């Protein structure tokens, strides 16, 4: 489902290929890294709130880099995600300054306050 959704977002064939390649890198990880990476990927798709394809692709590529490195070094899971995996995933998602669905609402709020301020000045 996610794959189809991303296709409609990205359009560009090259991006699709890159996304699939990075997704395959996540799927090829040894356990327990594969499960951890899959869970993080799901969370980021669900809650990252990113709407542009390019950002999404950069994110999954970085995610694959992180977990492949961890697997190669045999770094314990907790050394990567810390005590609170949610906090870690959110800090990770925040690193990307791509377009978020919330941006539209943020712009709307800013504009509404600006408008109200102009009324105040009258």
């Amino acid at each position, binding site marked *: 489902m996610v794959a189809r959704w991303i296709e409609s977002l990205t359009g560009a064939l090259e991006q699709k290929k890159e996304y699939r390649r990075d997704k395959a890198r996540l799927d090829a990880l040894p356990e327990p890294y594969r499960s951890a990476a899959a869970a993080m990927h799901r969370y980021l798709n669900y809650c990252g709130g990113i709407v542009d394809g390019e950002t999404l692709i950069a994110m999954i590529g970085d995610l694959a880099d992180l977990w492949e490195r961890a697997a190669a070094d045999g770094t314990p899971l907790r050394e990567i995600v810390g005590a609170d995996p949610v906090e870690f995933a959110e800090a990770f998602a925040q690193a*990307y300054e791509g377009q978020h669905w919330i941006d539209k609402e943020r712009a709307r709020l800013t504009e509404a306050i600006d408008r109200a301020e102009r009324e105040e000045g009258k």
Partner: protein
Amino acid sequence: MRKQMTEMLKGTLEGIVLAVLSGRSAYGYEITARLREQGFSDLVEGTVYALLVRVEQRGFVDVEKIPSEKGPPRKVYSLNAQGREQLDEFWHSWTFLAERIEQLRLTQTEGDK
């Protein structure tokens, strides 16, 4: 104590990492290891990695991929001109904050007497 430390670190970790990189280029694990040695014992690799992703996205570092004996190539981060500017700004803000907070503490200690 731990919670407060985490919150304070959130606002300063970017500056800390840029400062570590101002000495010499490093890859993610080296940065984490150095900071842990210096007493940031709760700091995990993932947090530093997320931060490196952020400073890379914002254009403060240059990234070079160096092949490693096992696993994928290592990403080596080095501070660029824009990063140096950001670091200067960080030190400026830090000095301001530290001075004001210290002033508050002194005033409070005076009051306690």
